């Protein structure tokens, strides 16, 4: 733990205030770290993944000997407190686990989820001689494959990728600012991998820039061009948060919860259906079919009714009584 700093001037006070817990949080920042031994594939992957995450990313270009996230999280805690970053990608390369990337996210300074993947068929960003997207633009995501729905590990990895790259939460999006798409395809391939430590299944990570063509309609026709980087991932080790911590981390502030609107639903067809309460119907005043036989005779009137009517037709009461 770092010593808690007490701000000595207004500037540092403001800087610390930015780090305090907020209802509407800052964009999560990420650090890309090299472990004790890395190779070119891992180094390039780290810097390319960092470029995709810019401007909310820091690339650590020196190697770090003490980083072993599955055994010890002290150094990650230290980086979290120093840089106020809750996302990490750690790259390493060893005989046991070649071309290794570990995706980590933290909650409140503690590790929440970790997923380790091995890289295959890596193509760095520089290999694609195409136009790139601008920095700090929200990407589109496309997750293909039922593994992302059915397998807990893949589901969490999907959630982590969304967490890493979705950028700032916004209410409106500029339609001309949709420049690139991150496509992640997972398949439970029958093909045996030569990596004994990997889970079955393969993940294709691709990034494309989008070009808009005329379609004769309001919505344009989309064409893609690969922008890079491109990887095939195989999931190795993973570690997830326990339910209590996860539940605590996904708590929604009361203010942000939308108020429940009563009696208004939208059905499957997209029609809005409202229910109105009309109160209890008074059936005694119901007007049924008029028939001569059902007409009220003077015998049906009560004494009170007759008294009221007497003002108008004075003979009624007399007739009845006689």
């Amino acid at each position, binding site marked *: 733990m770092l010593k808690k700093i007490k701000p000595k001037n207004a500037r540092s006070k403001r800087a610390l205030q930015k780090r305090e817990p907020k209802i509407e949080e800052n964009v999560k920042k990420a650090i890309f770290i090299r472990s004790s031994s890395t190779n070119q594939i891992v180094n390039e992957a780290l810097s390319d993944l960092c470029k995709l995450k810019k401007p909310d990313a820091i690339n650590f270009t020196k190697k770090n000997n003490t980083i072993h996230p599955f055994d010890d999280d002290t150094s990650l805690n230290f980086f979290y407190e120093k840089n106020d970053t809750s996302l990490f990608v750690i790259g390493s390369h060893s005989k046991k686990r070649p071309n290794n990337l570990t995706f980590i996210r933290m*909650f409140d300074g503690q590790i929440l989820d970790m997923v380790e993947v091995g890289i295959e068929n890596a193509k760095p960003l520089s290999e694609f001689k195409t136009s790139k997207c601008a920095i700090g633009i929200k990407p589109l995501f496309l*997750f293909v494959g039922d593994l992302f729905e059915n397998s807990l590990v893949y589901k969490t990895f999907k959630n982590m990728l969304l967490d890493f790259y*979705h950028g700032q939460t916004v209410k409106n999006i*500029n339609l001309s600012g949709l420049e690139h*798409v991150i496509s992640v395809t997972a398949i439970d391939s029958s093909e045996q991998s030569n990596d004994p430590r990997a889970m079955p299944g393969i993940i294709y990570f*691709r990034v*494309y820039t989008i070009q808009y063509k005329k379609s004769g309609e309001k919505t344009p026709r989309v064409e893609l061009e690969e922008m890079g980087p491109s990887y095939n991932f195989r999931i190795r080790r993973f570690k997830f948060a326990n339910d209590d911590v996860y539940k605590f981390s996904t708590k929604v502030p009361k203010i942000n919860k939308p108020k429940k609107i009563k009696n208004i639903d939208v059905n499957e067809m997209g029609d809005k259906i409202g229910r109105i309460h009309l109160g209890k119907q008074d059936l005694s005043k119901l007007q049924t079919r008029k028939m001569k036989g059902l007409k009220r005779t003077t015998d049906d009137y009560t004494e009170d009714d007759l008294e009221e009517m007497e003002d108008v037709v004075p003979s009624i009461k007399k007739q009845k009584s006689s």
Partner: protein
Amino acid sequence: MDFSDQLETQKSKYKSITVERPIPLQYDLALLAAFDTNALDESRLKNDTDNYLKEYTRDGTQLLINQIFKLPITTSDLGKLAELPEQITVIPREKPLPKLKPPTRWEKFAKAKGIQHRNKNKMIYDEATGEWVPRWGYKGTNGDGANDWLIPVPQNDDPFEDQFSKRREAKKERIAKNEARHRRNIEESEAALNQTKGADARSLRKGELQRQIAISKSATASIGKFDKTLKGELKLKGVKRKFEPSIGDVKKEKELNLNILKKVVGKKGDIVNVRKAIAKRGQ
């Protein structure tokens, strides 16, 4: 005139934007994400990976873009803005929710009385000089007549008293009083945040003061052993060891031992705090 034929021919000039998928995609438009659970063509994926992925992604992206363009759109100076719906996917937070700051005494009072905050202008008109000056601060009037060159002595007041120093003193007192209130608010808010521990502001402060006294007492070269004691000063007590009687309640003894066992073995998760242990070893 019927334009539909012309429209059709116009459309047919371009490539279509419709994509057929057996299982409809799911969207989380707040994250600009689409989730496709359709089965892939495995043999093509194996042999012609990159082209197949690009084609498949194009179709998926087209579907996603179609959805985004269907959203309510407003035009602004920046361009066309699509209004995004509520987010469906749950993404964990980075930090826990902030604790609500307890209201100060003034805030409580203002709420009870229905007093609303209203903004005052920063500049006020100084009638003496005929200029606009800041209400307070540098070159301000400060509203207390500190710049007055003459103060009439109030009636029934001591004529030899210095009215200027009287004002200065009064101001100092006001500042000190305000600071004391500020401190009290801080203490009370801290106590309110610690209320789960069952402490009020006074006892919290008392405990803290006692701890500070204890620390300052032992902060001499002789750990306070030869210090002069004040009259009526209580002797500081250390931790006294307590021993249970060697023969006594069997039930109680059993419970105690079981508790120890539970602490060592029965705990969920890690028994040893690895981080702390490593740090200890390193010392």
